[in-house]
């Protein structure tokens, strides 16, 4: 009994300190004020993506974000996970051109993309990207939700250690896209060519406010408010960051249930075998 007490006390101490240790890193990583925590459908151990939101988010991405941001890790074939069928994916891919070759004359040429191709980048290289964007390279968005989060799926972590404490990547994206202020506070000197954003670390962001009301016309008729667009594109970007999320959580529940049963059986067996020792 005493052993178990000590053991759990030690585990608790290590857990708490560990949480604080890592929590420290996380806050340092994002910085700035905390964006509001939204109740995302992919949160929690049963979380899944909302297909309609994914498709709307993709629409926002391709009409707004994609003109400056690359998405190097996403292939057109991946879009089937958004609920598009094979032909729809082919049609989407065919709207874009990718470089191919060399042909028999030794020249590179452009051809329509196929589902196997990756999303073409808007700029040929970082230098051109920087020149076209006032010196700031728009980051690739393939992993942005993981790179801006404290742990890709920190909803669980937040509820474990610091309820509401850690912003998810999606919270940050949503906060950033809705956090533009027309006027910087009086005591803040905004550098020329920068915009004031409440949730951007340091507040001075090079990206102009990208969303405005009805900036996209949603195919499903949803009213495209800025908040709605920010929400949808955050869901989409979370999917690109963690396309395995649904499969992972689904398999995880099965594995955990299996391990619970097995461990309970092992405990019973252990008690039986040790019965005559104590």
């Amino acid at each position: 009994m005493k052993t178990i007490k000590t053991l759990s006390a030690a585990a608790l101490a290590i857990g708490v300190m560990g949480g604080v240790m890592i929590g420290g890193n996380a806050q340092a990583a994002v910085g700035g004020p905390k964006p509001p925590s939204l109740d995302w459908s992919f949160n929690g151990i049963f979380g899944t993506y909302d297909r309609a939101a994914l498709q709307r988010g993709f629409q926002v991405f391709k009409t707004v974000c994609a003109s400056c941001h690359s998405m190097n890790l996403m292939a057109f074939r991946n879009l089937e996970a958004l609920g598009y069928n094979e032909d729809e994916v082919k049609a989407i891919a065919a709207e874009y051109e990718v470089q191919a070759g060399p042909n028999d004359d030794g020249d590179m040429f452009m051809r329509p993309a196929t589902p196997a191709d990756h999303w073409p980048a808007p700029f040929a290289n970082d230098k051109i990207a920087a020149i076209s964007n006032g010196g700031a390279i728009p980051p690739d968005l393939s992993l942005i939700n993981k790179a801006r989060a404290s742990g890709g799926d920190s909803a669980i972590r937040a509820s474990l250690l610091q309820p509401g404490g850690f912003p998810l990547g999606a919270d940050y994206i949503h906060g950033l896209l809705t956090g533009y202020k027309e006027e910087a506070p009086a005591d803040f000197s905004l550098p020329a060519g920068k915009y004031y954003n409440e949730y951007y670390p340091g507040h001075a962001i090079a990206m102009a406010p990208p969303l405005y009301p009805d900036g996209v016309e949603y195919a499903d008729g949803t009213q495209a408010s800025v908040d709605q667009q920010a929400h949808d594109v955050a869901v989409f970007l979370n999917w690109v960051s963690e396309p395995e999320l649904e499969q992972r959580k689904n398999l995880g529940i099965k594995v955990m249930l299996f391990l619970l049963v097995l461990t309970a059986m092992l405990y019973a067996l252990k008690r039986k075998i040790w019965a005559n020792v104590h």
Partner: protein
Amino acid sequence: MSDTAHAGQPTQNAEIDEQTRRDFLLWSTIAVGAAGAALAVWPFIDQMNPAADTLALASTEVDLSKIDVGQSITVMWRGKPVFIRHRTEEEIAEARDVDMAALPDPEKDAARVQQPEWLIMVGVCTHLGCIPLGQKEGDTKGDFGGWFCPCHGSHYDTSGRIRKGPAPTNLPIPGYSFLDDNSVRIG
């Protein structure tokens, strides 16, 4: 057991009961654990199967307009050479006019082509995986005017069927479809 039983008997029975229960628990735990271990091994094996990006590159489109009658080209598909031959009238006739009984792997020419002038097949010898000769002008085409595998002497006819030598089956036909008269998608 009755109340009049000897003092020692109930304990003995209880011990046997206890033993049986323990054995049952032991074997059921082993069974569950072994099943779990077997399932846990699968991801580590399945990771060696072709990945999603490899599978996605599984089709190739080919422009046929530049291949004259009597010429062949070789294209790569899934890392393997695919022979595309624009067959002559004689070759087609020869391929059709074969006694099925004489074939080690009987298959009608009509079953091997979608359009008679275009023979499209995987150019890997079904014996041990060498690439048969017969694609280029000067190549030896074997005894049946088709392809000849130099590794172990398999002869294929103008329909790519095995006629002589150690290869067990005809050259395989990949899945393909004509997009129009001049282009074909393999895979």
